[in-house]
Every structure is written in structure tokens, then in C-alpha cells.
């Protein structure tokens, strides 16, 4: 009826298009960041030294297998309802799939199926099968039932499930004893804290989250026993196996920041938040309050994986090599190795978990404490330090 109305309509459409492009750009930036951080899991027990490789193509990895040895398989990746941008296991698993593409083990353009609800799991797996996928990677324990059921019905297809044990002869389970590295991180944090209070919180009290909290708290206690300190840990009760949970993995939820702030209010200066990007609001809170505090990252080296404005905040990160093992699982399949349906349990020993370098906190960790932390890692590996490890899997 009026020209300006029409104009408005087109402006609205244009704005939407631009917004869509914008978000697309973000994604490509994310992918770039991911590529830069690919080497992180290599940084295992060597907490002091970084492999100073300034590579962008870091994915020429693993045990000298030449790309030519692979018969590329068609891979299909199904996320759980957190989606692929969770800055956690989904993101790392998808990166592992892409790394496998780079190494030649997987065919180009692997299929990514993002779930937005639990109702998506089954159709997504069915879609993978319908598209002729040879290797289906399902991410997270929530997909376990569906994976088990369809793996049984499709014995010729190879499966990898992240954060869950093997579900059959054709399913590789990827599990991580991350409490080993978290233990060392707790020891380190207890040595660094100025206030004598450190804290942890998680997204949900599920094993893959709580395992970090449990190991960390035990590491702090170990420091107290070994050094006679009395550092207290907020957010996890080792005896009760209960802790502070935000109940959400959505960093935008105000509850996340509030959880972190209440721990700061109680004096915590070193905090380990576990659950995708829920550590970022905590970083903002530390910056806003101007306290001399630090965060400990999880899964990947947060110094490189997280947005650069938080770089000063990472004391270290508890590394969990989901990307590496996902890639290796596909590579094993592509190189024709027998798979046998084993559960791979990553630990310090096999270097699938580890501790990241201190980066910007290097100066604030005494050489003595750094050495002690390295020693703790060694002692866990050798069994000199041991405890009732957190049970992985379901």
C-alpha cells in the first residue's frame, strides 16, 4: 500500500540475510581458530615447554602413517543436543572427523548432523545410514542407547561413540580418565592460590563433567596433605560426589555467571568451570571485578581455543584428546585394522589426557611448583599416587 512499507520489507529481508552471512563468518573464524589449536593435545606432561610450532596445518599427525595407506571411509557425525558449537566434546569430535579428512582417512565433505533435541538422534543416525556412511561417530552418552541399537542392526558399519564405552563389536568407545590430569591441575591451583580458596563448578552432574571436579578436588587435598597447606575447594564434595552445577551448558544463561560470582564472593581466585563455554562468563566476571584470579580450561588448551580477550586468565587446561582419538578411530578403520569393539580409555599414560602449558601464567608459577606438578603427573602415571579413580562410562 505504501512504498516505504515495501522498502521496509526489503530492508528487513536484507538485514536477515546480512545477519545470516555474519554468523556464517563467525563460524569460519571459529574453524580457523580450531585449526590453529590442533596441536594442543600433544602438550601432555611437559607442562613447561610448548612445541613452538607456528603451524596452521597442524594435522599431519599420528604415528607416521602416510596418507596413502588409507582407503578413505565415508564418515557421518551426529552431535547430541548441545550442537556442534559447544566448545566441548561435540566440537572436538567434529574437528577429529575433519582432521581425518585432512589425513586422508575420511572422504571429503563428511556429513554433520546437529541435533537440537533428543528426538533428533534416531533420525540422524538413520540418515547417516541412508546416506551410506561407513563410519558413524556419535557424540555423547545421550546417544548411547540409539547407537547401541543401530550398531547391532548394522554390523557392517563402524561406529565410534564419544564419552561412552564400547557398545558392541563394531563400536569403538572413547572414554577419558580426565581426573588424572585434573588432579595435577588441582595440585597446581592449590600452590598458586593467594586467597587459599579455589573452586569448581559444572554444567550438570554427569560423569563426564564430575570427573574433572572430583580429580581437581582430590589434587587440592593432596597438596594440603603433602605441603601442610589448608586450601579449600568450593563446588565439589568428594565424599558425597555432589557439587555445584549450573544446570545449563548455555553460557548466556545468567545463572552461569552468578554461579561463578558467588564463588568469587567466597574468596575463590582459581576456578575450574566444566562444561563447554560456561567458563567464559566466569572469565568476564573475573575481569569485571579486577581480581587477580585465573581459570582452568577443559578439553582443549583454552589459551588457544577460547576468545583472545581471555588469554591472560588461563592458568592451564585439562586436556582431553577427543579430536585425536576420533581421528585415530577413523584412521584405524581406513587403514583396515581390525577394530574389535574396544573401549579406548584415555589417560596420562597413553597421553590422551594431559595438562596444557601455563602460557601467560608462566611467571606466576614458581619453578618449584612447576616441577612438583610435573612430578605429580609422573607419580600418577607410575602409580605412586593413586586413589579411587572416577568410574568412566555408563
Amino acid at each position, binding site marked *: 500500500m505504501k512504498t516505504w512499507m515495501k522498502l521496509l520489507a526489503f530492508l*528487513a529481508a536484507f538485514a*536477515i540475510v546480512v545477519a545470516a552471512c555474519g554468523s556464517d563468518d563467525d563460524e569460519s573464524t571459529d574453524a580457523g581458530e580450531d585449526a590453529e589449536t590442533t596441536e594442543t593435545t600433544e602438550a601432555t606432561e611437559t607442562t613447561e615447554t610448548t612445541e613452538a610450532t607456528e603451524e596452521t596445518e597442524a594435522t599431519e599427525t599420528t604415528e607416521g602413517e602416510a596418507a596413502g595407506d588409507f582407503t578413505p571411509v565415508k564418515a557421518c557425525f551426529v552431535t547430541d543436543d548441545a550442537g556442534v558449537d559447544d566448545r566441548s566434546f561435540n566440537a572436538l569430535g567434529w574437528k577429529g572427523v575433519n582432521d581425518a579428512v585432512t589425513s586422508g582417512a575420511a572422504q571429503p565433505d563428511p556429513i554433520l548432523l546437529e541435533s537440537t533435541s533428543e528426538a*533428533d538422534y534416531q533420525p540422524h543416525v538413520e540418515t547417516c545410514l541412508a546416506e551410506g556412511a561407513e563410519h558413524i561417530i556419535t557424540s555423547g552418552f*545421550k546417544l548411547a542407547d540409539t547407537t547401541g541399537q543401530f550398531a547391532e542392526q548394522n554390523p557392517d558399519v563402524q561406529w565410534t561413540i564419544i564419552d561412552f564405552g564400547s557398545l558392541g563389536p563394531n563400536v569403538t568407545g572413547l572414554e577419558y580418565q580426565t581426573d588424572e590430569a585434573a588432579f595435577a591441575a588441582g595440585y597446581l591451583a592449590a600452590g598458586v592460590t593467594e586467597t587459599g580458596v579455589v573452586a569448581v563448578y559444572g554444567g550438570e552432574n554427569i560423569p563426564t563433567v564430575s570427573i574433572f571436579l572430583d580429580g581437581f578436588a582430590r589434587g587440592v587435598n593432596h597438596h594440603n596433605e603433602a605441603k601442610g597447606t589448608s586450601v579449600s575447594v568450593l563446588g565439589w564434595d568428594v565424599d558425597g560426589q555432589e557439587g555445584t552445577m549450573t544446570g545449563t551448558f548455555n553460557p548466556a544463561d545468567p545463572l552461569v555467571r552468578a554461579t561463578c560470582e558467588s564463588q568469587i564472593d567466597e574468596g575463590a581466585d582459581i576456578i575450574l568451570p566444566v562444561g563447554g563455554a560456561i567458563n567464559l562468563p566466569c572469565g568476564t566476571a573475573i575481569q569485571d571485578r579486577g581480581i587477580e584470579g585465573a581459570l582452568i580450561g577443559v578439553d582443549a588448551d583454552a589459551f588457544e581455543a577460547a576468545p583472545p580477550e581471555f588469554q591472560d586468565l588461563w592458568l592451564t587446561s585439562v586436556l582431553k584428546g577427543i579430536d585425536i582419538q576420533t581421528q585415530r578411530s577413523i584412521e584405524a578403520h581406513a587403514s583396515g585394522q581390525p577394530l574389535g569393539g574396544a573401549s579406548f580409555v584415555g589417560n596420562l599414560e597413553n597421553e590422551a589426557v594431559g595438562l596444557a602449558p601455563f602460557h601467560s601464567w608462566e611467571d606466576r608459577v614458581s619453578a618449584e611448583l612447576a616441577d612438583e606438578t610435573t612430578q605429580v603427573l609422573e607419580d600418577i602415571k607410575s602409580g605412586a599416587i593413586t586413589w579411587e579413580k572416577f568410574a568412566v562410562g555408563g
Partner: protein
Amino acid sequence: MTDATSVDEAGATPPPDEGTPPPGGDQPDWLPRITGVGESVGRALLVPALALVLALFVGAIIIMVTDVDAWRIMGEDPLTALGQMLEGVGVAYRELFFGAFGSVRAISETLFTATPLILSGLAVAIGFRAGLFNIGARGQMFMGGLFAVWVALHVELPAVLHIPLAILASIIGGGLWGGLAGFLKARTGAHEVITTIMLNFVAAFLVLWALKTSVFQEEGSNLPQSARLAESARLPPIFGSEFRVSIALFIALGAVFFIQWLLFRSTLGFEFRAAGSSPRASTYAGMKVPLLYTAVMFISGALSGVAGATMTLGLPPYSVTSNFPGTIGFDAIALALLGRSHPYGVLWAGLLFGALTAGGRTMQAAAGVSVDLVIVMQSLIIIFIAAPELVRAVFRLKPIEEGPTQMTKGWGA
């Protein structure tokens, strides 16, 4: 502004020059406009249909603009690039269509996805009819689902009794949760938008906690996941176990007809609609509006609760995790808007969203178009519905009313 005032400006059939404020008491005067309460059927259908066309069009533009490969060759060979973009759109929409309707499985998936959407959409729609903005479908789904799962795990009955009992439990669970918000509004005036949002959180944490207790958890597991539900409580699939669509679809259809009957044939529905259009006039007419708020929120919550039951009792592999409502509770609001708060409208809207979601999965796999596009398109449809002038402008429809609405609305008298 209400239609009434606009008509006044048109000089056609005016209320008095006296100019009483728009009707609706304490309700926002945009609510009827966006929810479509009180408009004719023809008008109710036209705008959503055109909104869908527009959304598909804008979606096509998005697919084209985000076709990175095509942009790379745009410089040298714009024609090929453009062709490639158009082909991308074609493939995406073809997959969208086939994924929604192209096979028995596709149709099953469309219907399966639509089922809880229809139920929760009805829940929000009946709230709109009574002038209440129920944002709490998610929480009510949680509670309904939780109650149903409890019955499924702890009661032993043959399926003919077990399923109805579990559904009844979901009605009670969701109904109480919704009714609580209605009761709070009736007794204390607490706004239902606030209370239902907050109750969503409470319900989510309650379910999270419950799934970690031995009441629901599988023995020996430490995952927040329920044990496998008893076979007798699982909603039987209609087309065999290979396809997910279950008898829940019939429950949803039954609910559509029931709500239609309730709203337009029963005295209670008359009261709901009256309270929704003008709480003040309803009070004057002797209706107990606070009681009606509680009642309508119970019914609304019960519908959401049944939606929660379909996402637990009807979702293979029949073990329940902590996010079984997914985004349905919020999609429900969009559905009620799209369906113009009319039960049949919600039915069609639910089928449309079900088709978009089911088709979107296939599109994601086969055309490599992110599933986000489906969400963007659903959002666009809603935006276009909320701005019907936009749709009318684009399609050069004759406006319902001409000229600016009363620009002289003051607060004076």
C-alpha cells in the same frame, strides 16, 4: 490499538467520539493483534500462508548468499556462480520437501515431530484465548513427562490400562504445574509470564535431580537417564516399529477437536474467551475471572503435559534424559501465533513445523544446508505473522483498515 478504534477512524462504524480506552483491561493491547484472537477465519489463514511463501523466498536468498563455493567463482563467471546458487536452492528445497513428504518414513517423521508441537501449541493457544501468555509449556512438558515416566516405571499393568494411566499422570503433572501459575495469578496477581518462566527452571532442575535418583535411574548407572520404560507403557507405533509415529498422533488430533469444542461449544470456553477478551466485562457479567485463570492454566498445562508424555513414552529408545522437551516448549508459542490461537490453525501450524523440522534433517544431510536455516525460516514466518502489514505490503493486499490508527491516544480523561 484495537480494530475498533481503527474502524472509528475510518468513519465506518465508530464507537462513540467519547473514546473510551481500548478494551481488555490489564492486558496488553497488542496481544489480540499478534495472537489473532477475535479475527475471521479467512483472514486468519491468508497471512500465515503468505508468510510461509515469503519465508521460503528469504530462505532461498540466504542459501544463495551463503554459498561460499559459488561466491569464489562469482568474479570470473557470475552466470555459472548464479546457476550454482540457484541449483543449491533447488537441491535444498527438494530435500526439504522429500525429507518431509517423500517417503513413508518422511511422512512418519513429519507426523511424529508434529505431534508434541500440536499439543503444546494448543496449550499456548488456549492460554492466548483466555488472555494469558503461557511461556511455561517447557516446564509443564517436563512435569507431565516426569509423572508419565514414573507411572511407566513403577506401575505394572497391561498396555490398555498402563498407557491411559501414564497419560492421565502427565495430564495431572502438567496441569498442576500450569495451574500453579494460574493460581498464583488469580490469588496474588503474579504475572503468568514471570511465573511460568521461573517454573520452567524449577521443573528442569527437578527433572535433572529426579533422573539422578534411584526412583528413575537405571540400577548401577550414574547417568542422569531413566531406566528403560516398561514395554506396556510405550506408545505403540502406528506403522510398525520401524517408524516412529505413534498413537500419540491420535491423542493430539483428539486434543485439537476437544479444544475446538471446549472453546466454541462449551460454557467454560465461552468464559475463557470472554475473560481473554475483556476481564472487566467478564467480571461484570458475573464470571469468576481468577478461577478461570486457574482453570485455563490447568488445561493449558495438561496439554503440555501430554506433549511431555509423547516425548517420553513415545520416543525410542524409551529411556528418558534430561532434555526431552527440547525446544518444543518455545516452538509452541510460535505455533500458537502461527495458528492464530485457533485449534485448527495450530494443527496446520504443527504439521508445517513438523514438516520443516523433519525435512530440515534431510536437507542438512543431503544438501549440506545447516539445520539452522530451518530455525531461521520458522522465525521468519513468525516475524511475518507478527507484522502482517509487511506481508500485505509485499503482496499488495487490500488493507483491512486504512490510514493511521488513532494518533491522538493520550492519557488525559
